């Protein structure tokens, strides 16, 4: 883990309210794993005070990329950052998606900005039978930045099927053997709830990346607990997660 100023290389809009910021260090950044995140200081003063967590979207030698959606003050400030400015990163934080298992088919499910960690991940699983199921509210939100084999669903039906990612998954799983298939998902809690219910009677492995309000991001504030089915105490989303087996989480 490190705390370091990075220089902003690019900060481009890729879809409605959605940006990718690229930052560069003097040294090579290695040992970053898909699913990990950084806590980024978006403001130089005390407003907003806390750092903001963002998943690693891509890594190229000494550059790291973060895909983000403007939802409030912090992400608004981030979107205004100019090339050449410095920005402070704390990380890498959290555990990572487990890509070691030998599964023939991988299904990546992204709900909205939950798609963010997948471009980095896809690079490391290129020889797999891979599908990305990407659920968006509207067509304007959709993009294919660093993604491949994407199937969309949208609430208004203007891109992909009209419906949600569970509908897409149901369709996809018809042709696949469950034991040879693994699912990775990232998105809002409502999506996880639906996914958990849908998978409850199916023997299929699924890892999810959870979100939480965070103050520190590395386990000292106890601010990001989540109930865990196999534990009496809470797990910390920042340190024990953010990746959990969907069967273990209580949402």
């Amino acid at each position, binding site marked *: *883990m490190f*705390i370091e100023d990075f220089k902003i290389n690019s900060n481009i809009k890729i879809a409605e309210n959605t940006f990718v910021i690229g930052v560069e260090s003097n040294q090579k950044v290695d040992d970053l794993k898909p699913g990990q995140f950084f806590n980024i*200081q978006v403001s130089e003063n*005390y*407003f*907003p*005070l*806390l*750092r903001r967590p963002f998943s690693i979207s891509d890594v190229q030698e000494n550059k790291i990329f973060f895909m983000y959606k403007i939802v409030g003050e912090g992400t608004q400030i981030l979107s205004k950052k100019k090339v050449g400015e410095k920005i402070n990163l*704390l990380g890498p934080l959290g555990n990572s998606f487990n890509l070691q298992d030998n599964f023939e088919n991988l299904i990546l499910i992204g709900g909205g900005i939950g798609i963010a960690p997948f471009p980095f991940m896809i690079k490391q699983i290129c020889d797999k039978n891979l599908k990305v199921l990407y659920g968006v509210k509207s067509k304007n939100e959709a993009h294919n930045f660093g993604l491949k084999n994407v199937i969309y669903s949208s609430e208004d039906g203007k891109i992909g099927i009209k419906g949600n990612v569970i509908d897409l998954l149901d369709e996809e799983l018809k042709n696949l053997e469950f034991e040879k298939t693994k699912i990775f998902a990232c998105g809002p809690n409502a999506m996880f709830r639906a996914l958990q219910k849908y998978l409850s009677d199916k023997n299929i492995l699924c890892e999810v990346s959870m979100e*939480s*309000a*965070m*103050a*520190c*991001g*590395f*386990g*000292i*504030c*106890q*601010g*990001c*607990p*989540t*109930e865990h089915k196999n534990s*009496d*105490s*809470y797990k910390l989303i920042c*340190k024990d997660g953010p990746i959990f087996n969907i069967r273990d989480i209580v949402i």
Partner: protein
Amino acid sequence: MNEIDLSVNVGPLKLKNPIMLASGTVGYGNEISEFIDLSKVGAIITKSISLKPRKGNPPQRITETPSGMLNAIGLTNVGVEEFIKTKIPFLEKLNSTLICNIAASSIEEYVECVEILNSQESIKGFEINVSCPNVREGGLIFGNDINNVGKITEKVRAKTSKPLIIKLSPNTSNIFEFAKVVKKEGGDAVSAINTLVGTSFNIYTRKPKIKNITGGLSGPAIKPVALAKVLEISRNVDIPIIGIGGIMDWKDAIEFMIVGASAVQLGTVNFINPKAGIEIMDGLINYCKQTSTNKISDLISSRILE
């Protein structure tokens, strides 16, 4: 130029410098030690420990506020037994001054905790938390009762000869009365302040942002309040004060010392910059050089009020 003398005394507690890391904002040291050499700061204070483990409050536990944050962690901790078994061995190796913060639901529980921990050589002092706003029992209602605070000080004092600090709540209109009682009953110092009770609502759902409804406000937003409380105690009671509340940089730390603090604690800033303790120390040294202050302790209560 001579080396600056950064050491301070907080009653019988001797610190190599006035920078302490506040309870609840360093965990048990292991995570934050990846970023900061804990042997360099004056002292570290553990997350409040209670007799039995506490699971803490359900999420959502924190939310951000203008220049601050609200938390309702609910004193999550591993309990005294587990603390001795699994946390002390790491803390011992740090070569840092270790202060143990204790929370409890009854006077007897405070006493029992101190009794159990007193024999641990690595613990150099106790900070008694009578001011957590986020738990029903043993929290504010308890700590806002001056008789209770007096009794806790008296009973705990009887069990330990190590430095005894009582951490006071700002959620009272007369904090100095509490400091007076602490002194009378044999406490060595007071910490001021713990968090202020606050709340925050989502205007669209009309629901509170944290599950506990209210939480403890910390961060730069509370600094003026904390300074005023330190000043109030300092003007009325002759007892060493540890200043806490919204310290973000070396200037804040100096301000607290001038107003009356013998040492300071860093809280929320550790979340944003876990190296802050060291950076602030560098700032103190520079300030001392700039102002020809050879001993940082000369700053304590050096305020000029008129």
